[in-house]
C-alpha cells in the first residue's frame, strides 16, 4: 500500500512512530498527482515547491523532538475560493484569474499553525455556483470512479482529489450541498458544519448566510480531525458562534446503541432513484440491527426548499458579487470608454453564464416591487423549514436521507438545462437553509458502479453525534473501500 492511500490518522501515527517521514508522505501524494492529475484534473494550482519545503520543516521539527499537532505533515488540498496568502485564489473564474490574496483565511491560519502540508488549490464550479464543477473557467474535473462522469460540485476538485489519492484530506465549502454532494458522487466522506462553527473570514462569499467551510476525507476519523482543527470562534467573522467546541476526533465513539434515527418520507419520494433509496434504507436497517432506533418523521415543507434556496442564495450572490468591477483586483476588460462601460464589459467578460444567471435572478427577486413576492416569501419559508427541523429533533438524534437523488451523471448531460442541474441539490439545500450540520458517507454503489451517499443530519452544533454515528457505520461495514484504479 502506497502512502497516498492511507488515511490522515494512519499517517499521523506513522509519523509519530517514525515509520515514515513527512517528506515521504508529500512525495507520495505529489507522485500520485503527477500520475493521475492529467486524467482527473482536480487542481487549479499545484504547490509542489512549497509543499516540499513545508514537509522538510515538519521533519526537522520531528527531529528536534518538538510536540506537533496530529495533522502536522499531512497533505491537504484547499478549494480555490479559500484565500491563501501568496497563492493564486481564482474561484475558478476568469474574473479572478490572476488574484493573489495578501492575507490568509482564518482556516488557512489554522491549517498552517498545525503545520499541515498544502498541496494546492482545487477546482470548483465558478464562484461555487454549480453542481458538477463544469462551470469552472479553467477545466472540467473528472470523477475518479469513471472519468466520463462529473465529480459533483461545487467542491468537485476537493472530492475528486481526496477520492483519487491526490490529497489525503481537503477543505471545501457548502452553500447548498457543495461539500456533501460531490463527496457522495466520489465515494468519500464530507461534513457541512453548523452555520457559525467554522470562520468564513477569507472565504470568497457566495451567499453569506448559507456558506460554510468544511472537511472532506476518506474516513470519518480524518474528517473529525480536520473539523476539530478548523472550528472555533473567530472575531473576524461576525456570525461565528462563541461557544466551547469539543475535540471531535479525540471524543469519537463507535456505537449506535440507542441512537434515534429519523426517516423523513419527503426525502424518499419522486425524483429519487430506487437504487439510491434502497441503498440508504439498507444502511439504516444495518444501523438498526446494531442497536439504533428508527422512527418515521415528517418534514412537510421540503417540497419548497429548492425554490427558497435559489431565491435566498441568488439574492445574496447578486449583492456579494457586485464587488467584482475591475477596479481593485482581478480581471479588467481591455477597451472601454466610460466607467459604466468598463464595469459592464469587465463583468460580462469575466463571469460565466451560470454566475450571470444567478446574479440576474438575485437582482430580479430583490428589485423594486418584487421583494415581497419572492425574497420575503422565501425568508418566511426558511423560518418554517427551520421550525420543522427543530420539531423533528425533539424526537430523534439524527435524520437519515439520500445525499443526492442518483449516481454521478455524464459530463455535459445537464449543462443545457439549469433546472435539471439544480434538482441534484434537492436533498441538501434544506440543511443550509436551516443552518444545520450534515455529513455524507458512502453507502453502496449504483448498478453502473457509481458511489451512492447517505446524508446524516444533526441538530445545531451536534457534529459529534453525526461523526459518532458515521464512524460507527464505517466500522460496521469495515471501511469505505480502496482508492479506485484510474483508467
Amino acid at each position: 500500500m502506497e502512502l497516498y492511500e492511507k488515511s490522515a490518522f494512519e499517517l499521523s501515527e506513522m509519523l509519530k512512530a517514525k515509520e515514515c517521514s513527512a517528506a515521504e508522505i508529500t512525495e507520495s501524494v505529489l507522485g500520485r498527482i503527477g500520475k493521475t492529475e492529467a486524467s482527473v484534473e482536480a487542481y487549479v494550482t499545484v504547490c509542489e515547491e512549497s509543499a516540499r519545503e513545508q514537509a522538510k520543516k515538519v521533519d526537522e521539527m520531528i527531529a528536534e523532538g518538538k510536540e506537533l499537532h496530529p495533522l502536522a505533515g499531512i497533505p491537504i488540498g484547499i478549494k480555490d475560493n479559500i484565500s491563501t496568502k501568496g497563492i493564486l485564489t481564482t474561484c475558478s473564474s476568469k474574473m479572478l484569474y490572476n488574484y493573489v490574496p495578501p492575507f490568509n483565511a482564518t482556516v488557512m491560519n489554522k491549517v498552517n499553525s498545525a503545520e499541515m502540508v498544502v498541496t494546492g488549490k482545487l477546482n470548483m464550479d465558478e464562484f461555487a455556483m454549480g453542481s458538477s464543477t463544469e462551470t469552472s473557467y479553467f477545466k472540467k474535473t473528472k470523477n475518479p470512479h469513471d472519468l466520463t462522469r462529473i465529480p459533483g460540485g461545487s467542491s468537485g476538485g476537493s472530492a475528486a482529489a481526496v477520492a483519487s489519492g491526490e490529497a489525503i484530506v481537503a477543505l471545501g465549502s457548502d452553500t447548498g450541498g457543495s461539500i456533501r454532494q460531490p463527496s457522495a458522487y466520489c465515494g468519500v466522506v464530507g461534513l457541512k458544519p453548523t452555520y457559525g462553527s467554522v470562520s468564513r473570514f477569507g472565504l470568497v462569499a457566495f451567499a453569506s448566510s448559507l456558506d460554510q467551510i468544511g472537511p472532506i476525507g476518506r474516513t470519518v476519523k480524518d474528517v473529525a480531525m480536520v473539523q476539530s482543527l478548523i472550528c472555533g470562534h473567530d472575531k473576524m467573522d461576525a456570525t461565528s458562534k462563541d461557544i466551547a467546541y469539543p475535540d471531535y476526533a479525540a471524543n469519537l465513539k463507535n456505537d449506535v446503541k440507542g441512537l434515534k434515527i429519523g426517516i423523513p418520507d419527503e426525502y424518499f419520494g419522486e425524483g429519487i432513484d430506487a437504487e439510491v433509496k434502497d441503498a440508504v434504507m439498507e444502511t439504516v436497517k444495518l444501523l438498526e440491527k446494531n442497536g439504533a432506533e428508527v422512527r418515521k418523521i415528517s418534514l412537510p415543507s421540503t417540497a419548497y426548499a429548492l425554490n427558497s434556496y435559489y431565491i435566498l442564495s441568488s439574492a445574496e450572490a447578486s449583492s456579494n458579487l457586485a464587488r467584482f468591477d475591475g477596479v481593485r483586483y482581478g480581471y479588467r476588460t481591455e477597451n472601454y470608454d466610460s466607467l459604466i462601460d468598463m464595469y459592464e464589459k469587465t463583468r460580462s467578460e469575466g463571469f460565466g453564464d451560470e454566475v450571470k444567471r444567478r446574479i440576474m435572478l438575485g437582482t430580479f427577486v430583490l428589485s423594486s416591487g418584487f421583494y415581497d413576492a419572492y425574497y420575503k416569501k422565501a425568508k418566511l419559508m426558511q423560518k418554517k423549514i427551520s421550525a420543522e427541523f427543530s420539531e423533528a429533533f425533539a424526537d430523534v438524534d439524527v435524520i437519515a436521507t439520500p445525499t443526492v437523488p442518483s449516481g454521478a451523471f455524464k459530463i455535459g448531460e445537464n449543462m443545457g438545462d439549469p433546472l435539471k442541474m439544480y434538482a441534484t441539490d434537492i436533498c441538501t439545500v434544506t440543511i443550509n437553509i436551516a443552518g444545520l450540520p450534515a455529513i455524507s458517507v458512502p453507502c453502496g454503489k449504483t448498478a453502473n458502479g457509481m458511489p451512492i451517499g447517505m446524508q446524516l443530519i444533526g441538530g445545531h452544533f451536534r457534529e459529534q453525534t453525526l461523526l459518532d454515528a458515521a464512524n460507527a457505520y464505517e466500522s460496521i461495514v469495515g471501511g469505505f473501500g480502496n482508492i479506485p484504479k484510474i483508467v
Partner: protein
Amino acid sequence: MNIDIKHIAKLSRLRIEDDKIEKFEKDMQSIVNMVEQLPDIDDTLTLDVNNAMKLREDVEVTDKYTREQLMKNAPQVQAGCLVVPKIVD
C-alpha cells in the same frame, strides 16, 4: 411572471450578447417559474435572538498591510492610486 432580461442585466451591470439573449430569456424564465411556486405563509419575520451577530468593538485596527501589498492585485495603479476612467467632466 415575465422578466425583462435586458432591464435586469442593466441593473446587474451585465451585458448579454444579442445571440445569447433568447437562451438566457428561456432559462431565466423557467428558473423564475420554478422559484415563484411558494405558498403564502401567514407569519412575520423576526430576528433570531439566539443567533445575533457579534460585532467587534470599535478599536484600532492592528493589521499591518502596506499600500503596495493591498494594491498589488489592481489592474491599473498610478502614483499609489487606482486608475479608473474619467467620471467627472
